């Protein structure tokens, strides 16, 4: 990859897009526009030389829950408005070490909790394909910025789909690596055992290069690992065709059917809408939008045409994935977000009578409603007397899902499934209810529960909006997924939104 030489007009291009989509919460325009390229060491707390390395001279967006020294680290929350990180995430430092330059912080759902980026305390991010629609979330700012061509790639975080879903909504490549393949050091924790830093990129090849530069064990994250020696190679395909693979295909309609039959009649505490309301809504949310179903079928055809062998597979455990995922995620979140108390950093009320008043005040006014809801849920499922029913049962289901994937992946190289049941949704009446947004995580969250790598890539445009699919692979099998997707991309070039210009080599 050669150093990017920007064409004239980039600054105007950037400003025009930003006015329409609002992807950055903070940006270093000089860096993005390229005038800072070759500016050597900008000393953001790590060795960086933008003249050297495989990503030399490339600016990148960083989701605002990933630390970049001296840049904001608000996580989309009022509580951390104005907070600047005193250190950089390992992933950021490793990218800088190969010449890339962090160019700004992208918008997100507060603390990663959401599927639209509308849960940001600061602003909305619009979808570059249709500004009336959301960019997806929670890494919506990163996805929108890449889709609009403002940066060649951006970092996101994926706890239950937060890289893949916005990538899918915006028509870019989204890689959620194997759990622990990329250090989480510097990623503000939402659900520690589920999440990874991921890549949103304008091409599969770019995602590969970025991932290869970031990955590897980090002493600052004792849950990070080096890939085993026999893991699939990350060497670029270089135009060669991808090796034909056995790809398991999960039938989305079978999953939705199983959901409907299993969850109903398992009433918990009676809700306002009756005991089956959750089950009904959940199975409705799992039904694919026709355009998405169309895209899925087209992708199957495309893969078959490239020589891959498609076989039907079943993952019967999947129907329990979302409640298990939200139980675990909110439980971990309730502890992870306990540190935000307005004492050592962050915002605190102007006056408090005592320490409890200060903590309550800081959290009460600092957190948005969705964050409060998830903290409440997570606190509840960990309370003594409730742990067995919720948290522990979810962790057992998680084991079951892991084993189910292992079983299926023993027979195929990867599993193909939709990313999200809908394309980018609209707002208000045309949107999805907060509950439906959660229930619709069913295709993404299972890779997080199992710790497996998953790659979402665009396969076409349906009804004016991008559609795509994801491949879930074996642990540390990113190379294989990238090969298949890169082959697909060569045969089906990624569509770009109107007004897109390619500035990045």
């Amino acid at each position, binding site marked *: 990859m050669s150093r990017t030489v920007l064409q004239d007009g980039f600054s105007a291009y950037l400003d025009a897009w930003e006015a329409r989509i609002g992807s950055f919460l903070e940006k270093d325009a000089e860096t993005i526009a390229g005038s800072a390229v070759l500016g050597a060491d900008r000393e953001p707390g790590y060795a960086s030389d933008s003249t050297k390395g495989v990503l030399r001279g490339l600016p990148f967006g960083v989701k605002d829950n990933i630390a970049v020294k001296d840049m904001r680290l608000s996580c989309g929350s009022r509580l951390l408005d104005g907070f600047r990180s005193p250190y950089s995430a390992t992933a950021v430092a490793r990218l800088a070490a190969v010449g890339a330059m962090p160019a700004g912080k992208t918008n997100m759902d507060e603390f990663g909790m959401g599927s639209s980026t509308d849960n940001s305390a600061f602003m909305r991010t619009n979808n570059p394909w249709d500004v009336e629609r959301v960019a997806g979330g929670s890494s919506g700012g990163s996805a929108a910025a890449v889709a609009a061509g403002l940066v060649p790639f951006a970092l996101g975080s994926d706890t239950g789909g937060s890289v893949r879903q916005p990538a899918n909504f915006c028509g870019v490549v989204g890689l959620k690596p194997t759990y622990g393949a990329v250090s989480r050091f510097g990623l503000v924790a939402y659900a520690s055992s589920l999440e990874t830093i991921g890549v949103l990129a304008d091409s599969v090849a770019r995602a590969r290069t970025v991932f290869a530069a970031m990955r590897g064990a980090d002493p600052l994250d004792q849950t990070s690992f080096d890939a085993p020696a026999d893991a699939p190679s990350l060497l670029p395909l270089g135009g060669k065709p991808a090796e034909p693979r056995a790809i398991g295909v999960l039938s989305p309609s079978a999953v939705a059917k199983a959901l409907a039959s299993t969850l109903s009649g398992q009433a918990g505490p009676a809700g306002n809408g009756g005991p089956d309301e959750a089950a009904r809504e959940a199975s409705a949310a799992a039904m694919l939008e026709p355009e998405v179903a169309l895209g899925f079928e087209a992708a199957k055809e495309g893969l078959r045409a490239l020589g891959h062998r498609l076989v039907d597979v079943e993952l019967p455990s999947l129907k329990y994935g979302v409640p298990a995922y939200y139980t675990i995620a909110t439980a971990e979140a309730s502890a992870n977000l306990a540190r935000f108390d307005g004492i050592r950093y962050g915002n605190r009320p102007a006056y408090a009578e005592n320490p409890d008043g200060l903590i309550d005040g800081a959290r009460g006014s600092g957190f948005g409603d969705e964050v409060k809801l998830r903290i409440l849920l997570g606190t509840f499922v960990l309370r003594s007397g409730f742990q067995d029913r919720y948290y522990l*049962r979810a962790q*057992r289901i998680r084991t079951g899902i892991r084993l189910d994937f292992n079983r299926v992946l023993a027979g195929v190289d990867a599993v193909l499934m939709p990313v999200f049941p809908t394309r980018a949704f609209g707002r208000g009446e045309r949107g999805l209810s907060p509950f439906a947004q959660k229930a619709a995580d069913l295709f993404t969250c299972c890779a997080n529960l199992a710790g497996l790598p998953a790659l979402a890539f665009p396969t076409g445009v349906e009804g004016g909006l991008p559609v795509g699919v994801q491949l879930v692979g074996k642990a540390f099998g990113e190379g294989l997924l990238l090969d298949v997707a890169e082959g697909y991309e060569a045969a089906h070039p990624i569509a770009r939104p109107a007004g897109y210009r390619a500035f990045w080599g």
Partner: protein
Amino acid sequence: MVREELQATAGLAHLDLSEDEAAAALPAFELMLEYFAAMKAADEDEGAFGVPVLDLPPTTQAFSAGNRLRFDATANNSNNTNSNPLYNLANELLNRSPESENRFVVIPNVL
């Protein structure tokens, strides 16, 4: 009953919900708990897991790869290196506290 649980939970989480906030949060809270409670079906769903789910051990981490321990050495405070971004930051951290005095972080006392 659920409403009291919600307030007790909010207390543990230091969220201090007003009555209005609690009332507003309650439907979504209940709906999600109902959704969580549906996991009970898994206990007897051998079709989904091959075995009763209660026979499976809980997973707290997707992978583990042997012991990970840190060598007991202190960071060199006078020589901040790029490989270790965390040290020699004490003063910077103190500056980020909303209120500090004589190197202490200041909070209101319990009176």
